[in-house]
């Protein structure tokens, strides 16, 4: 039976007073991650927005043991913590039956780019760690520079608007796809979550925490200043991402892919693009190109699942 909104615990372990921007998607994700952990476990955090804005001296929003490490090595540090617990349990210092949840959190820069090597190593070695990436599709903490996750056509400060960056040879065509990266590493659990589908998000994080081995959760995380959206449009843009097929909520468990939010009739991708300032410069041709890219990716996922879970565009 699926989780209902009142099944989510009321206790808060990611508390108010943090300095995240109004409307930050990452705040919603972290709050529910902390709820799923139930105030237990250890969080290792890569450099990023959430790290700098939730732990600013003299306060912290985390009611959970927390460690910040350098930008590129959160997965490596989480691996070390997990290995240390194995030793502590073996020596009898920690009760061998105690289940200590270790979570690594990083943004898209710390995952897709600089932290990729450490992530791949952690997944390959099979550490019992949940790795959660909050993907706001650029380096928002340093001032909106493009990352390996920035979608085609988006404005960033290092992909300024102009012919060179929209149609030039250096423009990234498609972003890295974590689903296939996770599949290539043969990990027991991978899921995509979206703050507009909060019960789904909570359920997936809770489920991941019960599974042994390396787990990867990819979270959609709207950024009002970076995406040039209104503070109150976070959930709207998150829901539109799913409804247009730009983002697909899915789950990969032991080799089987399942779409958890089927979309029988998709909305045109233009609706998702037009409320974001970072896509404002796109002309009709570019929007059609993005629509074609989304269509192609949806077809790929449908083929993977084996049936049409994401339907055609309805205009």
């Amino acid at each position: 039976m699926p989780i209902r909104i009142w099944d989510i615990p009321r206790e808060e372990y990611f508390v108010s007073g943090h300095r995240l921007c109004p409307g930050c998607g990452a705040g919603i994700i972290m709050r529910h991650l902390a709820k799923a952990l139930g105030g237990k476990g250890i969080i290792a955090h890569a450099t990023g927005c959430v790290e700098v804005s939730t732990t600013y001296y003299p306060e912290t929003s985390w009611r959970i043991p927390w460690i910040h490490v350098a930008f590129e090595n959160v997965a490596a540090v989480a691996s070390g913590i997990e290995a240390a617990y194995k030793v502590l349990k073996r020596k009898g210092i920690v009760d061998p039956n105690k289940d200590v949840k270790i979570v690594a959190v990083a943004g898209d820069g710390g995952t897709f780019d600089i932290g990729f090597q450490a992530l791949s190593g952690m997944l390959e070695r099979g550490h019992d760690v949940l790795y959660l990436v909050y993907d706001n599709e650029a380096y928002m903490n340093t001032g909106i520079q493009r990352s390996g996750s920035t979608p085609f056509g988006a404005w960033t400060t290092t992909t300024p608007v102009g012919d060179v960056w929209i149609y030039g040879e250096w423009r990234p065509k498609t972003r890295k796809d974590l689903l296939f990266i996770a599949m290539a590493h043969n990990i027991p659990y991978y899921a995509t979550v979206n703050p507009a589908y909060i019960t789904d998000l909570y359920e997936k994080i809770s489920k991941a925490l019960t599974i042994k081995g390396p787990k990867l959760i990819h979270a959609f995380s709207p950024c009002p200043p970076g995406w040039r959206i209104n503070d109150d449009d976070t959930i709207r843009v998150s829901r539109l991402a799913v409804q247009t097929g730009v983002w697909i909520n899915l789950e990969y468990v032991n080799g089987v892919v399942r779409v958890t939010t089927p979309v029988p009739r998709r909305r045109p991708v233009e609706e998702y693009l037009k409320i974001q300032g970072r896509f404002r410069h796109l002309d009709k041709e570019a929007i059609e190109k993005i629509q074609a890219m989304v269509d192609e990716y949806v077809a790929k996922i449908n083929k993977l699942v084996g049936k049409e879970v994401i339907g055609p565009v309805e205009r």
Partner: protein
Amino acid sequence: MKSFHPRLLKPGRYFMQGNIATAEAALIAGCRFYAGYPITPSNEIAEWMSRRLPEVGGVFIQMEDEIGSIVAVLGASAAGVKAMTATSGPGFSLMMESVGLASMMEIPAVIVNVMRAGPSTGIPTLVGQGDIMQAKWGSHGDYEIIAYLPSSVQEVFDMTIKAFNMAEKYRVLTIVLSDQVIGHMIGKLVVPDYEEIEIIDRELPDVPPEKLVYPFDNSRLIPPMPIAGAGYRVNYDSLTHDERGYPSVDRDVSFRLVSRLVRKIRENEKAIAEWEEYYTDDADILLVAYGCTARSAKEVVKKLRRENIRIGLFRPKTAWPFPWWRMNELSKRVSKIVVAEINMGQMLHLVREYSARDVEIVHVPYAPGYMPPPSYIENIVRGVYGA
């Protein structure tokens, strides 16, 4: 007569940010490739380059990390394009392996390190001067680099052009040790007429590509650099290599190569090193400061001179090579030296090493992430002077 691209920054007077001046200077110096990775407080350089490089026919790429950035720069430079990257403390640490790599393969390149407070992630948005020693000693083995210490927007512009020139002239990695204050300072910039700007390009072999060339010819201190992109068949190797570029474990080969890598800078240090002196002629107390700290130090000298305190300022403009002979001469004339910098004692070691034995050396340690205000240095100087 060199030709300048019509869309470079025109000669004239500007009110410009230090980081943007750095980027514009690099373009004037002939830089046409930039590979970088976002890091505060150097981001403006990458952002400006991403916009400006395509306009002047260059290429900007954002890499997956700083290790990739510097190595992409070395690749581009080996292929024949002047290239640079910009970073700050943590990124500079990641680049360290390639500092040695560039030195070993003698590939000219420029790193702009906009220093921030450290260690580790430190304070990304605030200033530090803690990378002075790392710039020279960060990579393993024996090698020499050149490092500049700009102290104003104008200087960061001039020194970036000079950094490219020196890199090309000596086939060496050159580092501009800017800092957060200089990088984010908006100040006056005068771009001189292009004819007045000296641009040096690397010396190319005078034999055609199909002929045999020795890219690491030990008979010359700085051998001409064959360009892979121009058709030369070259073999660059980070292993210890002979004059052809092939790896070798021969003791003579190793000693000859490492000696030359070091000698090409050490024997030219008097031509490369630069410094500024302010009221040092009759000084009894010598203040040593550089970068943004020198701005506070200069103010202290001005104020104390009005009280007839015989104080002078020695400001090295190059950290490496350090103008040690001048330091030594000055130390013999003064009774006390005060070293002010935003770290817990780095240039202090150089001052100690090269000063006369009987001179008293006092350090002003300061690492809160801010520039020391003139009053802070002044209080310490007064304590030393006994006034």
